[in-house]
């Protein structure tokens, strides 16, 4: 057991746990942030995606110890911001949401992309979403959702 400090959605937090505990479990179990989903537990699917110091990572692959001193943003930290609302609304308009299990992770991937590239091409969007698996949509309408977010949110990112 070790006390690990990091910044979670803008607030400093301290977690006393095994430093090898998965960040995913810390977020879901200790912090009740269930917007972070477990899809595979092996870094393949992106359902548990969060931002670590601005970089899109799979929280199932990050031991708590590696989060020490970093800034973590989960879907809970983004969904009520202007950027978050923009992505959520754009996904709604596009019809990007089906079962919804991958979608919070898709929102995180979209934010990470638009932060780097305000006006991505379709190919760049597909590349940026390629670490987030979706079994329902075939991706077309998610790609469209990202395009709509990029257009509507051109002053946000």
């Amino acid at each position: 057991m070790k006390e690990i400090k990091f910044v979670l959605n803008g607030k400093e937090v301290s977690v006393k746990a095994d430093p090898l505990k998965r960040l995913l479990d810390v977020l879901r179990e200790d912090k009740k942030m269930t917007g972070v989903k477990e899809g595979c537990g092996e870094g393949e699917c992106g359902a548990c995606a969060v931002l670590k110091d601005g970089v899109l990572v799979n929280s199932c692959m990050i031991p708590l110890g590696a989060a020490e001193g970093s800034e973590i943003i989960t879907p809970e930290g983004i969904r009520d911001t202007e950027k978050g609302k923009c992505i959520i609304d754009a996904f709604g308009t596009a019809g990007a949401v089906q079962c919804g299990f991958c979608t919070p992770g898709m929102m995180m991937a979209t934010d990470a992309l638009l932060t780097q590239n305000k006006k991505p091409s379709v190919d760049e969007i597909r590349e940026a979403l390629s670490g987030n698996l979706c079994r329902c949509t075939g991706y077309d309408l998610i790609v469209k959702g990202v395009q709509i977010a990029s257009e509507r949110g051109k002053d946000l990112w």
Partner: protein
Amino acid sequence: MGSNIALKEDDIKGVKMAAKISIPVLRIDAREKAGGWTHYIADYEFDNLQHGRFLRSERARAKIIEIRKPDFPEGYYYIDASDIPPGGKNNIQMIKDDWRVFADGDVRYIGETIALILGPEKQIVLDLLNQIEVVYEDLVPSFTFQDALSCKGGAIHGTDNIFAEFLLNIGDVDNAFPGAVRVVEGVYETGFQEHLYMETQGIVATWEDEKITLYASSQCPFYIRKSVAGTLGVPLGDIRVKQAATGGAFGGKEHFPDVIATPLAVAVNKIKKPVAMIFDRIEDISFTCKRHPGRISIKTGLDRDNNIVAMEIDTLVNGGAYESSTPIVLQRAIIHGLGVYRIPNARIHGRAVATNTFPSDAYRGFGAPQGLFAIEMHMSHIADEIGMPVSQFKRKHFIKTGDITITNAKMHDDVKLPGMLAKIEEMSDYSEKVKKYEDDPLRGIGLSFVNHGGGFTGNGEQAVIKGVVKMKRLEDGKAGLYVSVVEMGQGLQTALRKIASKELELDYLDIVYDNPDTDIVPDSGPTCASRSTMVVGFLVQECAKKLKIKWDEGVGAEAEHVYTHPEEFVWEQETLQGDAYPSYGWGVNVVEVELDPFTYEVKTTGVWAVWDVGVTIDETIMQGQSSGGVIQALGYASIEKCELKNGAFMQRTMADYTIPTSLDFPEVHTVFIDNPYKYGPSGAKGAGELVFDAAPPAYAEAVQNAIGKRIYEIPVTPEMIMEALR
């Protein structure tokens, strides 16, 4: 436009956008899901929650000699068949009840549930599980079609390993074959497919208000209720099932949740505490049902004018160790066996066999994709043999309204395939590309046609399901909708609201629909068989009309509507004769590919789809179904390899069972044509499975067109292509 396709004015009549109801609305669940507010079963919180894990068979077929258990600490339990209460049964009530809740005395497949280990700490449960030693005496297992048919090791099921056997016949095949001037034969094989819904299987069973209550990621809450009540030997009303938001299902959460729910309920019945069973991904891939592998042999006779005069089909599907829904999957596979073609003399023999593999079960398409892959590839092989363009040969044999189907009924649908072909030609430039790629060793294009019967096969809707829906006037001008069909991603919550609100002249947001709770909603049947919009949606439409009449009675006014089968559709279940489905969805796909000459990897460069689903209830939702269905099917056709080794699936993780990413396939260009069905809500027909059916043969045809060698099997892997080109 391709030179060999004559475009007539009649052909494109009806190729236009659909009704007002098709205008997209914001999906009711979009915002909550996108932001991560929606709670799936793993997000629920329960006081005093116990965690369960299954002790599973490590052998495909063996006697259990002894189970050596460590001492269990206080509060930890080992639950097995001996815990089923008197009056209950160690069987899961599905269609049959041959699947056991707990293996008892012997095991029949790797992963079979032997016991449930549970307690408050996950890690201690795992430690206990690891300390249990099962002593087996191995028996001779049977895995392949050949093993099954020769009853290797003795029959697993009955005396002959045959779960189901059917024979369909039209015309006079035996007299027709001698008149053929040419005979073409082929054997077509399809593999297992894992559903890979993004949310794994999960159920929490609780003891609430002196009642076992289950919260489940599920397609069919009433199926769970039936199976649990049967296992415990209690009246149906003693069990309550509440559907949790379900993160994808595709058939994988139709019957399989019963396999989790029944042991959990046995445990809760004993300890009266809530127990959770949430699969991790490895467990989910390794130990859940897959799509039935198929082996379909087709022999076709042609006359001098290259008309098909006779066809004989032999269909085998692998059902695994228990029956589950296998006979009905087989029925659908053979009833779709002739695809969209009019064959005057045809015979289809279908058998579903038992093996010591994980039981196969429902997967989007439910047998039709296997049958349709075979017939589509076979038609392309005949065209190749006689040197006729594939599109021309297929078109020449299109079934028409009034033609006889394989179950000796008239095709009632207004078949618009010629117009749909014309449309996809215009979109994809198919025929021009066929010519262009003739001498190109790396590029190819494929064209497929399919139909898919909506609703349960035969008399399922009227004799078995008898769906009921209810509606009620609520406060504030809202209306409550009570149905048992679920939202699992397909957009049903939104579609049913649109259907009800149209009749009641309300805003769709004023229709109140909660995830089904078996104590509250009537049984409108399961969420499967492309029936929820077409069949239940129609009940909702009719129910809403009744409520509209009673609306002025004020708050509390209620209406109910029960399924009645349209009289013009007749079916005889014993002989499988008559109208197998009241209507069909129809589809045409074109897939274009490019081969890497060094790695033999195939890149898909274009995908087009034209669908007749009657009328779309929401154009955007249906676009999502089309893209999603087609891409899932392209995965099945290309990269989703799932193999058995000594009865265990070799692919266990998402790293080795790969599904399409956003980079693997391009955009699916989709068009819907308008062809209203009179017993569908606003004219809608079944759609959810149809959109899966067409892409696999189109993809395989594209690859064979590129490499100039016939393809008989999916998934088409680079290894297969390398072998073919050697």
